[in-house]
């Protein structure tokens, strides 16, 4: 640090980040007192001593880290000095910053603060290069440094947002969020978990009147999990807007917690257009970006255009990201090779039928297992339908300034538009059966925080080779 340079302290709310890491252990003394209820003073001191020492150590460490972390906004970048024993100093130039995220959750809004994350190509893949909590005024000042002439803001309608939240919600993530809360409802609020479960009795009995008790319980849990996930997703993506400000694509989202993400447009590795089968029924698609810093924030999908009709989506994409998505030459999977797309679900179906027959015929819980077996058949049937749909819609094509690839990823169809200068390389693979049929698999490799590859299978060999050569010639230019 130069003597004539003035450095500022970060916001005290940054203490919570260090304390959060040891949150459970800090609560341990309190939990211990509730569970074991020591009677005498000697017992209380004996039970608390080690835990209190640990809590004191963690708190002291957090306070010292906060006091020793300083920042300065220089004209060419942001300077940070941090570290208690091992002092670190760095200057992150604004030119090298690929993604900036400004995140205000409920707590930081209360204390007039904002979490700011900066990402460059040189950082770790799982966390941002710099993550600090700043005063909100300072965070906005940094934000203004990159602000310039804006394009019109793209807003998502409430209905589309509700539909998108519904499509993205899944019971498992809802359950992970709600199970700890439900479990402790009785101890915290004096409520029993059954009070919550009984609220979904009537809808289930209307839809499935003769359902067995086990399946009814499972259905209740799934519905509650899905509802919780839906509410979380909606609150995360409500008030979504996106616009172009000079070199940056700026997206803003969130109801209770606001998140602002600034991404450099020329650093984008790929633009993806996603839709699930259900979204396809509603003719809705969403667009996201792959770039340095994308996906690091928990639950972030790097969305730039949420649920939209395809024509409107492509038009808006051209406004935000200068990428012409009109496909000039396309290669699709060879007709008659749909079976190769169905191998995995058919093998799963065969294993399921065998297991169901074995347990229902010879097991002791045959009656209970029948309902479970009927429920378990649904995802396999869905998987088969999706794979047929994936076969019909997969392709690789070349556009004016990018290559496009539409392939499946689990149960989602993802269309990637990759600028030629961001493509790493292309491979064509043939197994002996494909050699005989004149088919091949083509894989496109790209890199953002890690190597990502997308494959389309069963393409006609000659056409795929010609297309690969055409893409390579554009890459060389």
């Amino acid at each position, binding site marked *: 640090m130069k003597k004539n340079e003035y450095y500022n302290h970060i916001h005290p709310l940054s203490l919570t980040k260090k304390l959060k890491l040891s949150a459970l252990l800090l609560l341990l003394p309190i939990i211990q007192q509730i569970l074991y209820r020591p009677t005498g003073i000697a017992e209380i001191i004996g039970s608390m001593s080690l835990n209190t020492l640990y809590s004191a150590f963690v708190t002291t460490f957090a306070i010292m880290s906060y006091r020793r972390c300083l920042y300065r906004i220089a004209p*060419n*970048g942001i300077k940070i000095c941090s*570290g208690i*024993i*091992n*002092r*670190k*100093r*760095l*200057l*992150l*130039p604004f*030119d*090298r910053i690929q993604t900036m995220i400004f995140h205000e959750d409920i707590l930081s809004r209360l204390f007039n603060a904002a979490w700011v994350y900066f990402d*460059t*190509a*040189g*950082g770790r893949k799982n966390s941002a*290069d710099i993550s600090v909590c700043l005063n909100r005024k300072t965070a906005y000042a940094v934000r203004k440094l990159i602000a310039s002439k804006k394009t019109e803001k793209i807003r998502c309608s409430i209905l589309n947002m509700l539909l998108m939240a519904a499509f993205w919600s899944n019971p498992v993530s809802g359950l992970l969020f709600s199970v700890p809360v439900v479990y402790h409802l009785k101890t915290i609020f004096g409520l029993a978990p059954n009070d919550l479960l009984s609220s979904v009795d009537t809808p289930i009995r209307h839809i499935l009147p003769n359902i067995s008790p086990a399946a009814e319980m499972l259905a209740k849990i799934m519905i509650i999990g899905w509802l919780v996930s839906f509410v979380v997703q909606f609150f995360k993506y409500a008030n979504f807007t996106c616009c172009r400000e000079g070199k940056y694509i700026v997206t803003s989202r969130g109801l209770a917690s606001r998140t602002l993400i600034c991404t450099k447009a020329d650093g984008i590795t790929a633009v993806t257009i996603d839709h699930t089968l259900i979204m396809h029924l509603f003719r809705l698609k969403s667009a996201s970006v792959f770039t340095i810093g994308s996906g690091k924030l928990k639950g972030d999908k790097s969305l730039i255009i949420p649920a939209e009709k395809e024509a409107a989506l492509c038009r808006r994409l051209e406004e935000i990201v200068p990428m012409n998505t009109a496909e000039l030459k396309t290669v699709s999977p060879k007709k008659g090779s749909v079976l190769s797309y169905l191998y995995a679900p058919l093998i799963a179906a065969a294993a399921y039928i065998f297991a169901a027959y074995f347990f229902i015929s010879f097991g002791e819980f045959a009656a209970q297992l029948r309902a479970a077996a009927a429920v378990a058949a649904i995802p396999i049937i869905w998987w088969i339908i999706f794979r047929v749909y994936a076969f019909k819609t997969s392709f690789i094509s070349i556009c004016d300034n990018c290559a496009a690839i539409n392939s499946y990823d689990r149960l989602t169809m993802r269309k990637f538009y990759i600028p030629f200068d961001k493509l790493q390389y292309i491979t064509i693979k043939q197994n002996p059966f494909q050699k005989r049929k004149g088919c091949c698999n083509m894989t496109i490799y790209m*890199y953002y925080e890690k190597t990502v590859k997308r494959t389309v299978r069963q393409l006609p060999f000659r056409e795929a080779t010609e297309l690969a050569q055409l893409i390579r010639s554009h890459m060389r230019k």
Partner: protein
Amino acid sequence: MPNEGKELLSRRALTVWRIRIGALYILSGFLTGGIFVFSHTAALAAKILFTVLLILFVFVFCPAAFNKTSCRFCERAIMVEKGLIFHRISEIPFSKIEYCVISQTPCEKLYGISTLTFLCAGSFETVRGISLINSEKINLTFQKGEKS
């Protein structure tokens, strides 16, 4: 280019490395004490082994490793050489460096040296034992080079 071709590593780095090995030797005393509880002979053997290793590291390994480690400017790049057994030479162009991190432990601060880390896309290179003044110069040169 300022200091082009000049060696940027400080001889004080050798002293710091020796101090660190000494600290490790002191810590090994606790381990030996623990072994002593179970077996006197084993504790004595361990102590002798640690002492031999200390002498080897301080008087043989450290100077050899220091002589094999270097960091110098080249034309629009930094040349880093390090490693005694597995020797490695890296030439890092300024245009590929995203940013630099200068870090100092208390021991390094006492002797006026620092550790410089160059972060590139997907990888990083660390050089230990550069004097603080040279670290600042490299950082400044990288920033100016990046602008031009």
